[in-house]
């Protein structure tokens, strides 16, 4: 990315983080750690990689993006609102009575391709979209962002096997690999290691990158598929709660509890970041 592009991505990431903090605080909801974890990936995806258009969110040749970790959906909503898919004012109605935006993402919101919330659903649907695109000879790509917890689900691995079997190289799985899940460290619950080798053995083309280095995110996604004839997986090494020191790597922030005082502290940290 050039300096201008990088600046755009950084500023967007900062805005997304602040929106998420405010939304979660106002709605008294949870999952902020999961939102912050992918807050650097989404701006690069939406401004540099995906073929999308805020004015026509359903345009037929758009790249499809499914957020399988729907619990972190506020980060996607904030990204979409900042890019003009829907008014920023909607973010004030997150998790509220009669609000437009629910805690898990819904396809009723412009720009949201698919509703999720229960893990293990995104990748199978992405496979179906990949199959349909291949059958119709269409060139758009299907991206699916999954979490550690997503990869505990058997249905995710059913889809991993099927995608490789059918050589769906229009399918890209992005892993927000923060190594924390609801009740602790993934290593202590279901150790996914070595995820790269696992996916390679399953016949996926796999690369890894720092999920908070936006240049690295761009570089790894700029030439897809990673290998012709294979689905691509990019494992982004991330930090749950990234950008707020007291949230980082603390699975407590999978849940709620953002007080007025902590919100002010968190926003101050995000704003001060370079």
């Amino acid at each position: 990315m050039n300096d201008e592009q990088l600046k755009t991505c950084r500023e967007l990431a900062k805005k997304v983080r602040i929106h998420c903090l405010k939304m979660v605080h106002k709605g008294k909801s949870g999952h902020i750690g999961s939102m912050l974890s992918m807050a650097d990936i989404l701006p690069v995806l939406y401004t540099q990689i995906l073929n999308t258009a805020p004015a026509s969110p359903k345009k037929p040749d758009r790249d499809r993006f499914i957020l399988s970790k729907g619990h972190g959906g506020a980060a996607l909503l904030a990204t979409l609102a900042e890019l003009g898919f829907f008014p920023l004012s909607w973010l004030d109605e997150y998790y509220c009575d009669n609000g437009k935006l629910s805690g898990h993402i819904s396809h009723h919101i412009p720009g949201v391709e698919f509703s999720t919330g229960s893990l293990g659903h995104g990748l199978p649907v992405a496979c179906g979209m990949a199959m349909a695109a291949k059958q119709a000879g269409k060139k758009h790509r299907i991206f699916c962002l999954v979490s550690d917890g997503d990869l505990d689900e058997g249905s995710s691995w059913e889809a991993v096997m099927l995608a490789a079997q059918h050589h769906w190289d229009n399918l890209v799985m992005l892993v927000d690999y923060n190594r924390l899940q609801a009740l602790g460290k993934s290593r202590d619950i279901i150790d996914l290691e070595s995820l790269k080798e696992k996916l390679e053995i399953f016949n996926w083309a796999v690369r890894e990158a720092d999920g908070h280095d936006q240049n690295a995110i761009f570089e790894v996604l700029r030439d897809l598929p990673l290998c012709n004839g294979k689905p691509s997986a990019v494992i982004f090494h991330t930090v749950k709660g990234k950008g707020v020191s007291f949230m980082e790597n603390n699975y407590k922030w999978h849940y709620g509890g953002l007080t007025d005082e902590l919100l002010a502290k968190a926003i101050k940290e995000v704003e001060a970041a370079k």
Partner: protein
Amino acid sequence: MRKAFNKELLKIAKKDPRIFMILADIGYGEIEEFAETFPDRFINCGVAEQNMTGVACGVAMEGNIAVTYSIANFPTLRCLEQIRNDVCYHDANVKIVIIGGGMAYGELGISHHSTEDITIMRALPNMVVLAPCDKAETVALTDAMMAYDGPVYFRCGYKGEPDLHSGPVKVKIGGSLRLRDGKDATVFFAGTVGINARKAVEELAKEGIECRLVSLYSVKPVDKQAILRAAKETGGIVVLEEHNICGGVGSAVAEVLMDEGAGAVPFKRLAMPDVNATKVGCQAWMRDQYGLGVKDVIAAVREIVKNRRRSSK
């Protein structure tokens, strides 16, 4: 019946390039022609019903019509959340077809009995629930299902079921078919167990009890007018279904009667008791064992007619 379904689906798919078949390694002897004719619209996901349903939904989200197809509970209960969250919430054009509704695979045991499916499927918003009783209804309902834009659950039989209709029938989603008319009571049924209902009303006719016989092939939406007319015109209702008594076809009929102020009509549900079917036997034998036999229908109708005659004296 499964042969009739597959033949009809193939016929429609030859005209409609949007139709995909998404399988989970079930369909031997039936699905091969579709697979060979439309290799790019066919996929076997392996023994993985959750993925099958998710893939079907993804295919449908791209403007296609996806058919999932498997035995008994495999494409429904195994992947219920995919049906609920993915297919129904998105109102995706996915058709979920089971082979072997009820206890068609009787001897195989409860893993292969589909006896809670109607309750569960009809509880899902956006889902249409169809249960044909014979080949004629299977063909007509396959056409109706594929022409309908949205999720449908299709409870097909297995093989060799007797015909209840003498020729082709016309159906519509939300409709029903009257096979016989009578003034003394109405016997409603859905699915292949209807053969017992027909035998019963034929026996009852010999003793002077004339029954209306109605196939409620569209369990959801259900034909309200047919139910209310039956209550008003025949004064007694029996519902026969090859399904657990909790929440199935009988419950659907009862809901209409109560909601519409017709709950006073003498009424009896004939369904499987709320137990796991541990006995081993073929479908016809199992039906008799679990209260769905010809004699059970006869007894239920006789009871209604007897009570009415007693109270009118």
